[in-house]
């Protein structure tokens, strides 16, 4: 509420503008990770599409996650950031396991990794609902 009032004021203070910029910058970082995660989830069959496509999507997600890990979230975003990021990391790791298994021609590993990826996406979805439930 305080942020919206500050932004609506005719001449917002520099501090309020910094806070708005900080929030926008942090949300943009997350939006990149969201786009990368949804691109991974959109792959219909991770064990059948060209391996290079999965690898490209995984690397993009990994870069976005590493940027998030190295970021300093605004305090108001800490609950969502800290609750959801571990589960996004798990989706990243599970996708990497798929890539590694395909590179190695490891069929049992690929079967296990595919199951892990499906489970981790469900956990990420559940983590988002949990983080939303904690929102006032």
């Amino acid at each position, binding site marked *: *509420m305080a*942020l*919206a009032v500050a*932004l*609506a004021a005719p001449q917002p203070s520099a*501090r309020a503008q910094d806070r*708005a*910029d900080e*929030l*926008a*910058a942090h*949300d*943009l*970082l997350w*939006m*990149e990770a*969201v*786009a990368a*995660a*949804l*691109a991974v*989830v*959109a792959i219909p069959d991770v064990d059948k599409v060209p391996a290079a496509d999965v690898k490209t999507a995984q690397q993009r997600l*990994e870069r976005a996650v*590493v940027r998030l*890990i*190295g970021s*300093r979230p605004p*305090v108001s975003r*800490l*609950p969502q*950031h*800290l609750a*959801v990021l*571990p589960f996004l*990391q798990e989706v990243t*790791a*599970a996708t*990497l*396991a798929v890539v*590694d298994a395909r590179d190695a021609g490891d*069929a*049992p*590993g690929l079967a*296990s990794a595919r199951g*892990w990826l*499906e*489970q981790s996406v*469900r956990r*990420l*979805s*559940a*983590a*988002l*609902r*949990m983080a*939303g*439930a*904690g*929102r006032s």
Partner: protein
Amino acid sequence: MSARAPTLLAVATAVVVRLLAPAAAGAQDRCPSAEACLAKSFGSHWTQYQELIEKAWGDKKRVADLLRKATAAGRTDLVARLTEEQAKIEARWRFADGVAQALTAPHFGAFLERHRDEAAREHAAARARSQRETDLYRRLVQSTIGPQRSGVIRDIASYEREAIELRKTFFRDGMLASASSLKESADVFAHGWKELATILVKSGLVEGNGIAGSVPYVQAMSALMGSGYAGFEVVHTGVAVAEATARNRNTEALIEATRGAAAATLRVAELLAASPASAAKQAAMREWIGAAGARTVVWANVLALGLDTALTVQATRLLREAEGRQVQVETSDARWRARVEAAARTAREAALREERAQRQLDRQHAIATLYERIRAERGH
């Protein structure tokens, strides 16, 4: 401007890059697997969180104590310097306190417990399946005479039927869970999407913004909710998806609209993603944060909608595959060995994930204990 607190995981970043991307690491740093990398990364994060909170609190107490002594001694020069130092530490403490509150929130702790319990169930199920596959394979190898072999084959066939039924139940339940959360997401997006569409047009970010792709989804959700989940109920009672969609136009419309919304959400996320960043995107994000974003966290809602719709589409596809699959009697020795290996591998890796989930919970409890002590010292 308050002093900037250190980047939360600045020290760990370099370590995390190596741990999360073993291919890029030096030979001596290489993790044996993605799971091992993830476990190490989590361990590092929790350690950093704990150290951040302990140090900020320790510094806050130390400076407060020094300030009291300097004031009592009438050392105005020291008081001025310490007051300045205290302001900087106070900014660090506000951040560390925010981290502590987020990590020790009751709903987060409960979620980590549920996550641990689910990991334990997945491990138990994977172990049971591995034992069953191994046992069936052993009996197949041992049986050479007609009645024994046909007995094994009958058991394999019934096992396959059971697996297909279990899979159907799993995806039906998954679809119902998705439907519940879809309603919540759809309500948020019915408001947020309209505001976003206006802001994107104002910012000139119009080409292929995909907003229109979500409108049929919101309309189909409203129709489904109006009919009281009738579409999903028929799937839950075991009627095939093909038959359910033929019988109930709401179900068919929802599945089609869900597919469209999944694609549309991905397009919106791509449009709003940071790279490449542009002044127009920055302005659009700032304005949306002032509007819908002030009430909610923008990226979390986009991701939630995207995941829910994608999971529903996936569940529908997998359910159709399970229903259409013929029961195959597996007699090839090589394929059986592959099945046994895959099941054993899945069980081993599920065990590691259960251990990781338990360690996460233990570390969260440690921080909760620390924060409880700090709150007691603060007199809360």
